[in-house]
Structures are given as C-alpha cells and as structure tokens.
C-alpha cells in the first residue's frame, strides 16, 4: 500500500545550518504516528515541510503520491491535509459557526461564490452543525470566538481543521496549555472526532511521552535533524538510549 504521506531523503538547510538532514519517513492510512524529539531537533521544520510550507533543500515530499514540496497550505488543505497549531489559533471576531464554516466553504469549493448568501446554504450549515456536534460546540455556534473559554478555543481550532474533512491531520502539541489531568480527555475527544470525521491518519507532534505511548502506532524520534528512531511504542520505550536522548534532555530543560 502506498503511504499517504512520505518524505524521501529530505534535507532542509539554512546556510550552513542543517535543520533536517536526509529524512525518510512514511505514514500510511490508518496509522497514528507521533513525532518526538528535544527542542531544536527539527520537529517544526519537518511539520512545515510536510504541510508544504517549506521547500526542501534536497529530497521530495509526497502526499497521496504527489510531490507537494512548497505547494503551500492552501493547496494541501483542499487536497486533504489539515493541521492545528501549538498556540491556539482562532478568528477573534468570527463566531464558532463562521470559523467552522470557513473550512467547510473550502472543503465544498464554494469560496468564489461572491453573491450567494452563506446563511441560506444548507449544505454548509448542515456540515457546520455536524462538526460542532462532534466537538460539543453545538450550543456555542453563535458565540464570538474570542468570548470562548481557553479550552473551547482549542476545540474550535481543531474542529475547524477537521471540517476540511482531511485524510491526514497533523496535530502540533494539541494538549499544550491543557492541565495534565485533562490531557487524556482532550486526546480522547480528538481521536474520537478523527474517527467520526473519517480521518485516515494522524500525525502528532508531542512532548508528553505518556500521551505518545498511549495513542501511537509508531513513534518517530528526531535528534539534531536526523531520524533517531522510527519504532512501534513497545520497541521505542524498550530502548533506554533513545529515551535518554529524547526525554533525558527534556528533564534538564
């Protein structure tokens, strides 16, 4: 089976600095893959390459068999990839319905309808209501995003990404800013929502090893721009050297 998303020998250099060096990874349909690594290991660069924001210095990035190097987030969003951000990203002056609606409009290819009333479009409203329902935001549809609680903002951020009906979703530290006690609840909601929304694969960038261990099918560890390990959780946590590199440095952090 061809991977949904794949990098082949990807490097990204900034002058003499090698942010990423010869990375070859693949994510297949049905997989939950976590990317871990200490700060500065190249996680952000990798995410930006996977989402088509950056063009690799060497190598190629494939999404569903197509080279997506540098095609940009917009093209990827329409082709079936979505991402969320570590820091919550909302549209302060848009309501919850409008925020989700923006993604639905993209998904349904209606963005150039200059004169058709948004409110009268039942296909859009139905989909917005559906997504809001999945994330428990159905009571807040008419609320301005900036008036939501911090947790609701996070949910909305993710919900709007899901509204693109992506095949792959890239979650960049989705539980940052969430209390330890709630982290699992949030993750459960996300994974449940992903299933409900028909997402084929999830890529998670995360520091919390507990979460990584609980949900991942596979863990990719980066260190100094290279792939340190690409293993299932059992094998990953069985290797103390890897844990030392990834977590040990974090302890000192």
């Amino acid at each position, binding site marked *: 089976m061809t991977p949904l998303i794949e990098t082949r020998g990807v490097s990204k250099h900034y002058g003499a600095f090698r942010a990423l060096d010869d990375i070859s990874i693949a994510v297949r349909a049905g997989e939950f893959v976590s990317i871990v690594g200490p700060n500065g290991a190249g996680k952000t660069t990798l995410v930006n390459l996977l989402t088509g924001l950056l063009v690799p210095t060497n190598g190629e990035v494939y999404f569903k068999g197509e080279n997506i190097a540098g095609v*940009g987030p917009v093209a990827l969003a329409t082709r079936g990839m979505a991402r969320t951000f570590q820091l919550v990203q*909302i*549209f302060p*002056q848009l309501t919850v319905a409008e925020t989700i609606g923006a993604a639905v409009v*993209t998904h349904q290819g*209606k963005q150039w309808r*200059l004169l058709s009333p*948004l409110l009268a479009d039942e296909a859009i409203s139905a989909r917005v209501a559906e997504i809001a329902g999945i994330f428990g935001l159905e009571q807040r549809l008419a609320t301005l995003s900036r008036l939501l609680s911090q947790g609701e903002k996070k949910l909305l951020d993710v919900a709007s990404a899901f509204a693109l009906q992506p095949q792959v979703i890239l979650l960049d530290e989705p539980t940052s800013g969430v209390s330890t006690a709630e982290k699992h609840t949030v993750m459960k909601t996300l994974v449940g929502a992903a299933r409900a929304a028909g997402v084929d694969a999830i890529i998670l960038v995360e520091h919390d090893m507990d979460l990584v261990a609980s949900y991942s099918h596979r863990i990719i560890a980066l260190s100094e721009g290279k792939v340190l390990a690409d293993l299932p959780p059992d094998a990953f946590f069985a290797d103390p050297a890897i844990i030392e590199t990834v977590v040990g440095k974090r302890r000192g952090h």
Partner: protein
Amino acid sequence: MRRAPSVILIVAAVVALGLVPVLAPPFYANLLVPFYGYAIALLGFNLLFGYGGLLSFGHAMFLGLGAYGAAVIAGVWGIKEFEIVLIGAALAGLVVALPLGWLVVRYTGIFFGMLTLAFGMLTHSVLFKFYHLTGGDSGMRVPRMRLLGLEFAAYNKIELMAGPFYYYCLALMLIAAFLMWRIVHSPFGLHLRSLRDNAQKALYLGVRVHQFRLAAFVISAIYGAIGGAILGFRTGLADPELVYWTHSGHLVFMTVLGGFSSFLGPIIGALALTLLQDQLQSYTQYWRFVLGAILALVVIFLPRGLAGLAADVGSFLSSPRRRPGPVQLPEHSQPGVLGPGLRRDDVA
C-alpha cells in the same frame, strides 16, 4: 424577528432620503449627491478595510480614476451616456487595480498603508506633471451626460442634480449596497473576514490569502471609481485634489466616523461628514480644527463609530436592564511581533 427593527429603520432612512428633493430646499439634494458618490466608494473601501483588515491610505486615487475616466469618456471621446461612463470607470478601476493589487496585497498593516499612499501620490504627481494630457492643476472637464438615454433637456444642471440625478444616485447606492451586502455575507466574504482576523490560520483552512485580498482590492477599486464618476459628474471637473493624500485621509475619516465594523457604518459616516462639514463651514472659519477634534474624539471614545453608538443606544433602549457592554474593539495587531514592527504579511 430580531432584525425587524433595523429593517424598518433602513426602509425609513431610504424613504427619508427619497423625500429630500421633495421636501427640503434644492440645496440639500445637491449637497447629498456627493454623499452618494462617497457612500458607494466607501462601501468598497470598507470591504478592504473593515472586512479585509487592509487600511489603504491612497484610496482616493480610485475616485480620481473614476472622475478622470468620466472626463475622458464623456469629455474627450464624447460618449455622453452616464451608464457607459460608469461601466468605463468600473473597467478602469479593474484594469488599474489588478496589477496594483497584485503588487500591494502581499503586504498588510502599515506597509499596505504606505504602499497605497505612495501609489496615490505617484498618481497625483502624474496627473499634475503630464498636464498636456490631464490639464495639470486645472484638471479635465466632465460634461453633462444623459441618464438612461434621457437628455432631461428641460432641467438645468442644478435641477438635474437635485432631481433625476439625485434619484439615479440613490438607486445606484441601493444597488451597490445590496451587492456589497451579498458579497460580505457570501462564502467569499467569510473567507475575507477570516484572513483579516488570522491570516496564518486562514491559510491552513484553505483561504487563498493573496487572491482574496486582491479580489477585495479590485472590488473596492471598482466601487471607488464608480463613486468618483458620480463626484466628477456633479463637480463637472476631474482635478488632482481628488487624489491628494489628505483626500484619502478624508475617506478613512468618514469610514471611522460611521464605524468600520458595521456594514452601514461607512454610509452613515459619509452622510454625517457631508452634513457636518456643511454646517461647520458656515459657523466658523476654523472648521478644520473642529473636524480634527471630532475625529480625535471618535477615534478615542467611539472606536466603533456612530453605527456602534447607535447599536449600543438601540440595545440599551430595547432592554432597559441590559446596559451596553464595554466598548468592543477588534483584536489589535501586536506591534513588534514580526520583526521591526512591520506587520508584513504573515505568509509572504
């Protein structure tokens, strides 16, 4: 049902405007013709500013384009059908705004403002310098034109302005407002607002940031040119003053006075400033000072403009127990987050 009172208010306002030529002295109908020109231009301007988050400080150039367009089409080429002039002005707006917009929409914030200011002043100096073509400071004549193919020969120009042309402009404004209402409430409008609020997030939701800004820029240019054609017909002259940077400042003034976060705000602002300036000029020779002071007060105390004030008063009256909430401001940009404070486009 909640919208019913505002619908009644709008209908009442339109009826009141329609009655001006009948009930008020002809002077007021004449005075309001430029208001319609500004109202149409500002509807477009606010698509860019209020809905798109881009403050153009050179937007007067499109009003100039419309007025000079009218001067060329009706004056030089002798095509004296106002409808053709309007189409020509709109096309001119489109043709100029496409390449210009392509250049400027890559920037936001102060950069966008300065770039549009620079282009506006470039236009001003071109109009001034190439005086064999443009008449320099004395501008180009905009002759009297036919409306809907009718000559209205029985009317002199003042009667034409206070009668047929007045209603023509009112109708034009209503059409322009209706179309703009549809645009801002369309899926396109939603995407435009989303990228105003957070361009990075919008990008990842598949919002084509540059294309949408360009579209908004072009639409606003077309509206500006149509408004400019009305001003040109009214004044009978297209002159470089129309394009000077302080006139652009005036456009922003009207928009903020009325309230840029509301659909009708710019129209209210255009009306308010037209009437205010008329009155002030009669009462004091220092009317610019008073205007400046009013602008300062509005900026400081009424950031949502007259429309915001009206909304607060309205909600206060409709539910006596609920006081108007604290002034709600659009989320501000954080100065300095992107390099030297120049909020360049987050994606460029």
